[in-house]
């Protein structure tokens, strides 16, 4: 089922997505999985390890997460074509790489909510007007 991104969705699709989450994201996720499967074995192993890390500790959700996975797939496809050794992609500290990478994408809802709450709490504690502190969204 192709959902053209600009045309309005039918009531049925709107209802379905309320239940299942956006279908567009699911389609992009399937495409991402298919691209990962095409990679040479060692790149694929690394990509799947990275995916596990991101699912557990990654900051983003929904469409933002898909952009993140797609950008990573671009990196792996390009590196495989160039024959870049795995260690040259990740460096000595793979966690450092992945954290620098995920910092580029918007945080997921609960993290964003907690950051706002924390920022407002500090503003109140400092005797400021917390209303003007609602700027924590990256």
């Amino acid at each position: 089922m192709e959902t053209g991104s600009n045309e309005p969705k039918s009531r049925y699709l709107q209802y379905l997505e309320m239940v299942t989450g956006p279908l567009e994201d699911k389609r992009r996720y399937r495409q991402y999985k298919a691209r990962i499967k095409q990679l040479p074995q060692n790149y694929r192993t690394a990509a799947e390890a990275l995916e596990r890390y991101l699912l557990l500790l990654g900051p983003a959700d929904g469409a933002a997460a898909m952009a993140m996975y797609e950008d990573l797939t671009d990196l792996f496809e390009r590196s495989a074509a160039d024959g870049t050794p795995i260690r040259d992609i990740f460096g000595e500290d793979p966690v450092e790489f992945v954290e620098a990478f995920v910092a580029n994408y918007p945080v997921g809802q609960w993290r964003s909510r907690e950051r706002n709450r924390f920022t407002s709490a500090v503003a109140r504690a400092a005797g400021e007007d917390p209303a003007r502190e609602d700027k924590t969204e990256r």
Partner: protein
Amino acid sequence: MGKQLTEMLKGTLEGIVLATLSGRPAYGYEITAWLREQGFSDIAEGTIYALLVRIEQRGLVDVEKVPSEKGPPRKVYSLNAQGREYLEEFWRTWSFLAERLEQLREGGK
């Protein structure tokens, strides 16, 4: 590359990459290879990639997709007006920091 150099590089790598791009447009692999030749021997392709994603999102570079003989198209990055402005600010900041550190070193003798 020592741990200290890695730490110091973190704050300056963005400026280094923008300065590299001010000479001529380049793709990620080229930038990494060039930096390695310049003595940043342990720099990771992924680190440069993460940085390129960031400067693209912030609108400091223009990106052109160029077909490659093998594999997916390469993204070629070139510095735009906003990027040049940002690079100038980077050099001003760098001069400030370098001057202050030099003063500290001389004062410490």
